[in-house]
C-alpha cells in the first residue's frame, strides 16, 4: 500500500481510526474528544476533536457510545477507563496534557499499573493514556511566552518509574502510528507521550496498519565516535548536534529511545560498546530522570566499554518558565549537547 506524508497528529488519528475499525472494544474518552456532546440534534457534532484535534472525525464514524466526551473529572474518567479495561473494553483516554496526571495519579499509579499484579494475574488493564507534553519553543523565534509551568512538563521519568506501566514517546509520524497501534493492542496500560512541538512534524507513513514494537530503541544515525541517546523531540536535537559534530570530525551514533519504559538497554549497550562514549539527551527535569537512568545502567553494565564520563543533558531543575526568552533556555538544544560532548572529551570551550 501507499505511503504518504502525514504529520504526527494525522498519524495518530489514522491509528485510532484503524484500530477502532478493527476492534469494537476500542473506545476513546476524554474532554472534548469530539466536543459539543449531546448537541448532535442541533447540528453540532465534533466541533473540537480533542485538545490537539487528533480525535477529529472519530465520532462521525463510531458514534457517541465509542467516542465519549467527558466532564472535567480526570480521576473519575481515568478510573472509569481502568474499570472499563478490566471488564472488557480497550479505552484510549486523552488526558490533554501530561501535567494533568496531578489530577489522576492514583488511578494511573495505584490502580491501572498494579491491578494485574495485586490480583495475582486475574485481570488485565488494556488501556492507553495519551497525553501532550513538552514545550513548543523554537529558539530565536520571537514570541511572548509558552504554556508555562503547569502545561509544558515532560514527566515521563515519573511514570517510567512505576512498575506495571509502559511508556512510549515517539519522535516521528511513522513511529507515532505504529507505537499507538501497539499500545492499543497491548494488554497492559501504556502511557503514550505526544510531544506538542512534534505534532506538526511531517513524514512518510504507510496507509496500512502496522505496529512498531514497544520496548525497542533504534539507531537512527550510525557513528563510531560517541553515542547520543535522544527521546522524542530530543532525538531531533541529537541529530542536529550530530551534524554539527560531523563538521568537527566526530561521528556520533544517534539512538532514538522511543520507549522510556521498558528501556532497551541492549541497543544502547551495543552502541556504547562500539563508541565508548555516551551522552543522553532528555527534555525532562534532571533528577531521577530517564537520562540519568540510562547513564546509570551504562555505568554499571557498560562500565568496561566506557572511555569517558557519561554525560546527561536535561532541562534544568526548575519549573518551565513562561517568557519565551527563558523557555528557549529551558529546553536542551544542540549547542548544549555539543558542550556536553566537548566536556566529555575534555575539549575546552572554543574561543
Amino acid at each position: 500500500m501507499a505511503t504518504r506524508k502525514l504529520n504526527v497528529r494525522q498519524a495518530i488519528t489514522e491509528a485510532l481510526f484503524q484500530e477502532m475499525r478493527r476492534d469494537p472494544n476500542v473506545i476513546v474518552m476524554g474532554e472534548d474528544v469530539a466536543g459539543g456532546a449531546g448537541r448532535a440534534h442541533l447540528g453540532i457534532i465534533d466541533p473540537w476533536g480533542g485538545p490537539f484535534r487528533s480525535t477529529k472525525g472519530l465520532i462521525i464514524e463510531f458514534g457517541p457510545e465509542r467516542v465519549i466526551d467527558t466532564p472535567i473529572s480526570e480521576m473519575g474518567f481515568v478510573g472509569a477507563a481502568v474499570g472499563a479495561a478490566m471488564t472488557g473494553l480497550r479505552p484510549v483516554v486523552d488526558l490533554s496534557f501530561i501535567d494533568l496526571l496531578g489530577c489522576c495519579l492514583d488511578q494511573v499509579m495505584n490502580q491501572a499499573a498494579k491491578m494485574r499484579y495485586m490480583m495475582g494475574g486475574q485481570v488485565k488493564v488494556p488501556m492507553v493514556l495519551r497525553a501532550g507534553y513538552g514545550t513548543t519553543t523554537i529558539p530565536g523565534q520571537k514570541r511572548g511566552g509558552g504554556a508555562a509551568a503547569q502545561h509544558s512538563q515532560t514527566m515521563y521519568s515519573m511514570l517510567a518509574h512505576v512498575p506495571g506501566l509502559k511508556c512510549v514517546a515517539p519522535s516521528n509520524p511513522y513511529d507515532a502510528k505504529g507505537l499507538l497501534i501497539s499500545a492499543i493492542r497491548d494488554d497492559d496500560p501504556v502511557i503514550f507521550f505526544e510531544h506538542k512541538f512534534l505534532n506538526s512534524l511531517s513524514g512518510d507513513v504507510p496507509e496500512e496498519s502496522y505496529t512498531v514494537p514497544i520496548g525497542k530503541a533504534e539507531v537512527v544515525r550510525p557513528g563510531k565516535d560517541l553515542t547520543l541517546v535522544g527521546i522524542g523531540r530530543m532525538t531531533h536535537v541529537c541529530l542536529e548536534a550530530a551534524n554539527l559534530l560531523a563538521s568537527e570530525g566526530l561521528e556520533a551514533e544517534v539512538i532514538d529511545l522511543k520507549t522510556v519504559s521498558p528501556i532497551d538497554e541492549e541497543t544502547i549497550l551495543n552502541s556504547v560498546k562500539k563508541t565508548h562514549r555516551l551522552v543522553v539527551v532528555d527534555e525532562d527535569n534532571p533528577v531521577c530522570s530517564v537520562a540519568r537512568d540510562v547513564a546509570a545502567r551504562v555505568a554499571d553494565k557498560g562500565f568496561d566499554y566506557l572511555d569517558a564520563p557519561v554525560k546527561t543533558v536535561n532541562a534544568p531543575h526548575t519549573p518551565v518558565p513562561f517568557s519565551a526568552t527563558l523557555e528557549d533556555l529551558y529546553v536542551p538544544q544542540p549547542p548544549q549537547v555539543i558542550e556536553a560532548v566537548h566536556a566529555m572529551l575534555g575539549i575546552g570551550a572554543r574561543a
Partner: protein
Amino acid sequence: VGALDTSKLLWIYERMVTIRQFEDRFRQLVETGRPLGSGHLYIGQEAVAVGVCAALEPNDWITSTHRGHGHCIAKGVDPRQMMAELYGKVTGTNRGKGGSMHITDYSKGMLGVNPIVGGGMPHAVGAGLTSKLKKTGQVVAAFFGDGAANIGTFHESINLAAIWKLPVVFACENNHYAQSTPVEYSTAGNNIAGRAASYGIPGIAIDGQDVFAVYEATSQAVRRARAGEGPSLIECETYRYYGHFIGDNPSRYRLADEESHYHDRDPIQLFRRRVIEEGSLNQAQLDEVDARVAALIEEAVEFAESSPLPEPSELYTHVYGE
C-alpha cells in the same frame, strides 16, 4: 420478607453468617498470635453486603473498599481461597500477592477490595460503561464508606454515572466513622443520601441493619439501572462492631450507648427473629446453616494453613502480561 422464598432466605442467612464466622475466626487467629497481617473487619455490617448482593445476579459486578471481606463473601467468593489469601498463600484468590486489602475474584464479578478510599468508585463507572456499550444488562454495585463521601472520586463518579445513565448502584455504608472521625464532623449537609440531589438521581437513606430493607432498596435501584434509567444512591446506616482495623480500640472514640444500640440491632439476630416470628424459617434450619458454615470456615483455615507459599519467582510475575 414477603416475596422471598425459602431458598433465598437461607441464602441470605448463610452469607451473613459466613461473613460473621469467617471474620470472627480470622480475628481470633490474629489475636492469638497467628502470624497474619491485620485487616478491617466487616462484622456488624453484614446486612449491607448481603442485602445488596441478594439483589444482584451472579454476573453483575461489585466494587469494594478496604473493608471488603463481607462484600467478597456476599458476592460468592470462596472463603477457602479468601483465607488462603490472608495467609499469603499461593492458593489464595490473588495467589497471595494482594492480601486482605486486594481480594478479588473476577470470575464472581468481584472487581477488587480496594484500600484507596474512593478508589473503586470510578471502576464501577467503567464497568457500567462496558455493560452499557456491550448491552450485557449487567449492573454494578459500588460499595463505599461514609468517609469516602468526602473524597473527589465520590463526586466525579456519581456525576459521570448520572450523565451517562449507567447501571450503577452506589451503596454507601455509613457506619458513622472513618477511622476515629465521626461522620457528623467530616460531612457537611444533612446526610449522604441527600447528596444524590446534586446529580439528579434518587437517593435514599435506609436501615442498614435490616437486610430486607437493603434488599428492597437495592432491588429498586437495580430495576432502574437495568431499565437504562441510570444510577441510584443508597445510604445504609450501619455499624462496625470492632475497631477500624484489628488492633484498634474503638471505645476510645465511640460511646458505649451507641455501641450497645447497634449490638441490639445485630443484623443476624434481627433476621433470625424476623423469619422465625413470621414463620418463614425455623430455628433448626438456621442452626443447620450455622453448623454448615462453621465447618466451612474450619475447612478454610485448614486449607489456608496447609497450602503452599508462593514461589520466589512469583515476585516477578504478573507485573506485565505474557
